[in-house]
């Protein structure tokens, strides 16, 4: 509530006098849009009025039959709800001593006959005080409510964090279950088929052998799927262990690991100079492995296969690419490439589970980088990823 708005609302002023003519006189002095005047002709009347509403000021005749103005004032001061309401005593000349005890606080007095201008200005001053303190109260209340909202939001936020942590640990136990419980039946399928094959011995027919092979292949494929899915979920939940990683060395290590897949093939490698980056060595190794593994896989029909690995630094990030002259893919599907289980080739053409690049994207994202792909179908592909240049490993 702002001050201008507060001013428009009339404030209550209580007029207490046993004589009607006095009340009328007071009313005529104070009349106007600023006040809502309430009259009381006795102490009890006044107390009744005070029960119902809040008042900006009380104009009180000291001399009243029955309960005197002084007694009434004592009662008003004694009540918590009313003790702060300013009282303006109207006294006969010579009675000032009677209210000596009330000098303190929001108490004032005037001697009769009342001077209109003085009364008006005194009541106006009390009203102003009342309005201001109301506005202040409103502001405090507003602030309290805002704080309460913030507190609520904080509670909600911490609930969310807890939910998230719970979901995370559920996910973790889920992947644990997947790793353990899905593997056991697979191992048993593979195991019992092998035992069956052995017990068939000489009686095994060519179709039997074929079926057995097909079952074993399916088991192997399912095993790879489980492994990849687990690796993918792990990428999302394990903490990143940041270190300075020499990508040239990393690429070399991965090439050694992949040597069996490259042996017997004509492959021309072009490896540019690669910077050091900051990141999780194991995760980055997985990224490089996936990209080189893909490049080797999709150039299998090429001789020579050309694989180029390079990097450039621009706009505060290192951009890496692995380019090959393999079968490529339709550029329209470039973004699908990074989705889980998205494959642009059939299993018969090129084996794979469709999780590798999804893991790449997730790892790169977790390192605050980006990943994208370019390709012309039939001519080759280039997969890019970027990592921010950090102060720890400026070239």
């Amino acid at each position, binding site marked *: 509530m702002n001050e201008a708005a507060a001013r428009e609302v009339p404030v209550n002023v209580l007029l207490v006098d046993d004589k009607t003519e006095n009340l009328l006189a007071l009313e005529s002095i104070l009349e106007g849009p600023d006040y809502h005047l309430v009259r009381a002709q006795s102490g009890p009347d006044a107390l009744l009025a005070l029960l119902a509403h809040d008042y900006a000021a009380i104009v009180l005749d000291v001399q009243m039959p029955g309960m005197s103005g002084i007694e009434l004032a004592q009662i008003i001061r004694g009540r918590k709800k009313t003790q702060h309401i300013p009282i303006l005593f109207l006294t006969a000349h010579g009675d000032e001593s009677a209210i000596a005890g009330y000098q303190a606080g929001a108490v004032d007095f005037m001697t009769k006959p009342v001077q209109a201008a003085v009364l008006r200005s005194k009541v106006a001053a009390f009203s102003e005080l009342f309005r201001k303190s109301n506005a202040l109260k409103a502001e405090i209340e507003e602030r309290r409510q805002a704080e309460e909202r913030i507190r609520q939001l904080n509670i909600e936020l911490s609930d969310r964090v807890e939910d998230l942590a719970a979901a995370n640990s559920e996910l973790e136990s889920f992947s644990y279950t997947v790793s353990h419980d899905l593997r056991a039946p697979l191992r048993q399928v593979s195991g019992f088929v092998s035992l069956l094959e052995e017990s068939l011995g000489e009686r095994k027919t060519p179709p039997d052998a074929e079926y057995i092979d097909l079952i074993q292949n399916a088991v192997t494929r399912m095993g790879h799927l489980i*492994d990849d899915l687990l690796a993918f979920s792990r990428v999302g939940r394990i903490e990143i262990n940041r270190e300075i990683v020499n990508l040239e060395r990393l690429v070399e290590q991965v090439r050694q*690991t*992949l040597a*069996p897949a490259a042996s017997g093939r004509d492959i021309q490698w072009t490896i540019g100079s690669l910077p050091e980056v900051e990141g999780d060595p194991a995760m980055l*190794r*997985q990224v490089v*492995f996936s990209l080189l*593994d893909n490049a080797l896989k999709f150039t299998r029909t090429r001789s020579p296969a050309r694989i180029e690995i390079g990097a450039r630094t621009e706009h505060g990030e290192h951009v890496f690419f692995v380019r090959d002259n393999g079968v490529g893919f339709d550029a329209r599907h470039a973004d699908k490439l990074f989705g889980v289980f998205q494959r642009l080739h059939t299993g018969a053409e090129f084996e794979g589970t469709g999780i590798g690049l999804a893991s790449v994207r997730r790892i790169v994202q977790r390192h605050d980088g980006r990943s994208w792909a370019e390709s012309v179908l039939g001519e080759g592909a280039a997969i890019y990823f970027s990592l921010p240049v950090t102060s720890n490993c400026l070239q």
Partner: protein
Amino acid sequence: MTTPARILLVEDAPDEWRIALESFAESGLMDQTTVVKDRGEALDFLYGRGPFRQRASGMPAVVVLGPTMKPATALSTLGDIRNDADLRRLPVVLMGMFDVETKRLAYAQGANSVVGRRDDPKSRAESYAVLGRFWGWANVPPPGCIPQPKASRP
């Protein structure tokens, strides 16, 4: 020095480590084995200090304390490993003729395995070969050790 050592053999006698290496060769572990001659060298190797400052990173998948090592030295080497925060989980195998008390001590101090010495060279070679196949290939070492190589999947 560049090939990571998956087996660290602590053995002083050339005859003995020749038998060991030949047996390990059968399962393709020969070039993944590093031989050091005593406790001091073994610790230098594990901590990657002194002559081993340049060694490839990663802890061996097993430390084999060879049969010519004195039982007391073997036990204190085992103690060195078990009392170090970074080494304490390393698989350690003690080889040699031990009396029951020493054997009990070795197991109680956390030896993963104790292998009695066979006098006949042929059965000795056989026990190295079996040892290599288990610790070098079948067993999954604790994190930080050089893992078992897995086909072409990371």
